């Protein structure tokens, strides 16, 4: 819904992801990437159609999302553990170590910097064991060291898991994904290879009319 009335964001999107498979979805800003991720996660329900989840699918791992900002990092960990039925105590050392929050781990999230939020978001989602991770540009934020650690946690320690990664950055997809789609004008276009998707996507970007400088 917008001020101008209903707007169709996605239509006729069909795909299937098996255990251990991964998929990169490319789309420009506003293409509906985050909407699609939220639909897959179940946080939002589609207006029509079906979404079947037969794996333990994560919540959308977006930077800063899924936190109550008045709770501390530790209380957010407890919340997530309670919701997913996991004992939080054994996870505290991992999250504390990974996030490098120090004393801030016990301070309200609203005092965190972007980097701290991102590290906490990532650590929380690693704390709960999922079969399929939904990643909404989370990997794009943060410094090189954080990238490296995320890379290790997700793509080495959990390389048997499935994931769906959405981003506007074609190079990220090329780096991590075995399959790729492009979200273009509400439709999900499938391609035989990541390279084909990459080329098409780069084409849609350059086809965009540039603002004329006077």
């Amino acid at each position, binding site marked *: 819904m917008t001020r101008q009335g209903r707007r169709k964001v996605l239509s006729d999107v069909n*795909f299937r992801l098996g255990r251990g498979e991964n998929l990169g979805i490319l789309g420009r800003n506003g293409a509906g990437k985050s909407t699609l991720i939220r639909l897959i996660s179940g*946080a*939002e329900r589609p207006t029509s159609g079906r979404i*079947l989840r037969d794996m333990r699918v994560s919540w959308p791992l977006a930077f800063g999302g899924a936190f109550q900002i008045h*709770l501390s990092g530790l209380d957010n960990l407890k919340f997530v553990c309670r919701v997913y039925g996991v004992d939080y105590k054994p996870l505290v050392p991992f999250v504390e170590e990974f996030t490098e929050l120090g004393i801030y781990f016990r301070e309200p999230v609203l005092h965190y910097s972007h980097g701290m939020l991102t590290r906490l978001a990532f650590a929380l989602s690693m704390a709960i064991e999922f079969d399929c991770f939904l990643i909404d540009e989370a990997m794009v934020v943060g410094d090189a060291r954080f990238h490296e650690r995320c890379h290790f946690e997700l793509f080495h320690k959990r390389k048997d898991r499935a994931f769906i990664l959405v981003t506007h950055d074609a190079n990220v997809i090329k780096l991590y994904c075995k399959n790729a789609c492009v979200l273009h004008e509400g439709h999900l276009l499938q391609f035989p290879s990541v390279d084909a998707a990459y080329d098409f996507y780069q084409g849609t970007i350059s086809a965009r009319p540039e603002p004329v400088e006077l």
Partner: protein
Amino acid sequence: MLIETALHMATETTPSLLHCLGIQRRVLHALMMREIITRFGRENLGVLWLVGEPMLFTLGVTTLWSFAGMVHVSAIPIVAFAITGYSSVLLWRNSASRAVGAILQNKPLLFHRNVRVIDVLLIRTVIEMGGATASFIVLSLFFIFIGWVSAPVDPLEVLFGWMMLAWFGASLAILIGAGTAFSDIVERIWTPIAYLMFPISGAAFMVDWLPVGVQKFVLLLPMVHGIEILREGYFGNVVPAHYDVTYMATCCLLLSLAGLYAVREANRRVEF
């Protein structure tokens, strides 16, 4: 749209009711802890404020009314009158007022698929009503113990009146809370409505004291019936009570249905 994140379509089964109840229990527990921590913190009295806050309110109003020279209103001692009246208002009004910010303040938590709008609204209502109920019980017991108030004539009728008010309050809270997902106007008009409702909600009078012509208008408000039942249970027939259980129940039922419908629609409208 068809999206599958699965290997075998054949394994698509409806989870058992027991399994779902387990998830529901976990989500409500998590939300309960989340609300209590942010609302009352861990310092000084902590969660005891849940009971302390409504007690302070009720005691304050009781003191004000006593000083206002109303030592006895008809045959009812002012302390008992104020406690029954103001506790009832806290019961139905505060949960609706707390429901106003519920969706906005918990929006990020709705990222988790099992955390839904109804859970957020339910848990706030439960916390608020738990506090109001505990405050009512503690104050009653205290004043009965020191002899300022005599014990309720019919505790079961008090309980019944209290439950009816709780039903009214819960359905109102769910409707108002879900309404905030549709428009900010709900929040803006709720505050003046809640404020204006207090003097006509039956907290500060018995219907019997009003002119007959006014009575039937006042009795259009469902909560007036609840307070009349409660006071009849507390004081017996000292003042004749005017109420209609069927009318109040019908109002509550309609409010509940409207509230549940609004919650279902609100789920679709929450924007991240």
